[in-house]
């Protein structure tokens, strides 16, 4: 069976891969590009740990047909650092101890980034809404909410 050629921007870099029909973006990123930051959690759209930004919008890579990102820009957690420097959200997650097992963290960070990119000063309710598609089984969400609020206010102090 013929594979389909696919070109897109991955964290600002042009990439070209060949995909089988029906391949989802999560598999394409992990297995064909080698970007392991988006995780598989359900394949159903329920956990958000595979979240990526497509043209700046939050999407679930496991429910995205890889071919649909042709010519578009895909941003993953692997791309949010500024060189060796952590993104303010990454710093805030660390400062607020907002990760335990760490498996939901990539998706949480992308969901939070999608929020702050559009709304740099969100309310707590807006933060709650922004991460509502992401499941965390460890933290009870409170430190994650605090981390996003801390990153938004630019401060590092605990909320």
């Amino acid at each position, binding site marked *: 069976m013929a594979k389909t050629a696919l070109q897109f921007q991955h964290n600002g870099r042009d990439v070209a891969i060949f995909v089988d029909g029906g391949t989802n973006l999560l598999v394409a990123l992990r297995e064909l590009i080698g970007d392991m930051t988006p995780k598989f959690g*359900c394949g159903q759209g*329920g956990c958000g740990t595979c979240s990526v930004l497509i043209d700046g919008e939050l999407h679930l890579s496991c429910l995205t047909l890889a071919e649909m990102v042709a010519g578009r820009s895909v941003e993953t957690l692997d791309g949010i650092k500024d060189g060796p420097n952590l993104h303010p959200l990454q710093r805030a997650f660390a400062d607020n101890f907002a990760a*335990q097992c760490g498996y939901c963290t990539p998706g949480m960070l992308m969901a939070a980034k999608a929020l702050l990119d559009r709304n740099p000063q969100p309310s707590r309710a807006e933060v*709650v809404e922004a991460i509502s598609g992401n499941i965390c089984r*460890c*933290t009870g969400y*409170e430190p994650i909410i605090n981390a996003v609020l801390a990153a938004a206010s630019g401060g590092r102090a605990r909320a």
Partner: protein
Amino acid sequence: MTRHRGRGIASVNYPIGMNLGGDPSQALVHSNPSGKFTVALSSIDLGQGMKSVTRQICAETLGVPVEDVYVDTADSDTGPHCMGSFASRGTHRVGNAVMAAAREARGVMMEAAAEELEVNAADLETDGRGNIHVKGAPHRSISTKDVAIAAQFKQGKTISGRGIFLVPLSDVDPETGEMSPATCYAHACLVAEVEVDDETGEVDMVRMDSAYELGRALNPRLVEQQLVGGAWMGVSHALYETPEPYYPEPVHGPRDFVEYLMPGPGDICPHDIAVLERPAPDGPFGAKGPGEMCANPVLPAVANAIFNAVGVRIDDLPITPEKVLRAIKAQGGARPQPRR
């Protein structure tokens, strides 16, 4: 429509480590020639902080800064045997094994330092900042790095240590159940406040106040992670979760995170926590283990709070709106109890 508030409490204890003991864990600690230490374990970090807490235990025991220690977990070729990460045994069992290994390694390190400083090892102490000096004479000092280099290249010593911790297996009397289940216990008491809608049976969490006694909070931030996340899981168990909603009838089992109910970020409530420390005689620096017991008091505290709010006892988990509503209807309406 009326919403009623109520408060309920529960107090619990929890045994630390595998029941009856017989669950050993081992650790290996060694230094590289720069005086940096590696802890080799086969224990698992599944988010509870195994790597971090054993790192602090090792650093404290060696007398070096935490930055000088790195914990490598879960490689069956390099990490010695460990029963596994369960039964609240990580901090207690693995922590003790790491302590034993670090103590042995520290002994060699102090001997090597003594040889370099030409003093008796018993007269030396660590400053916790990477130096070893003569007690009462801080100027007669050598860095752990220089000790490591000397041990490796001059003295031919390995700065390393082996540790194991084993609580011997207890017998169980089949007739009376006489046994030694655990060597120490953590404790907790939690107050839950809820609001119950008497027309729909919906229960909202209002707040929680709690006290947890954990022997020693080796790292208060990690303890907080467990207690906050664990209480969330307790609420989840109390009000939401089940893979068999019609148990024991095996029907309508959830298949995804929409059907499997767990509180979302909009369902959480403030939780004020106090941590008490009554050191366990056999815990590493007195520590017990907060990981498992943190959820337990929440379930009954929530059930008891619902009774206080509307006067119904739900003895069947999870306490769904349906069960609350059925019980309210069966008693002819909400019967709020005296406000506590």
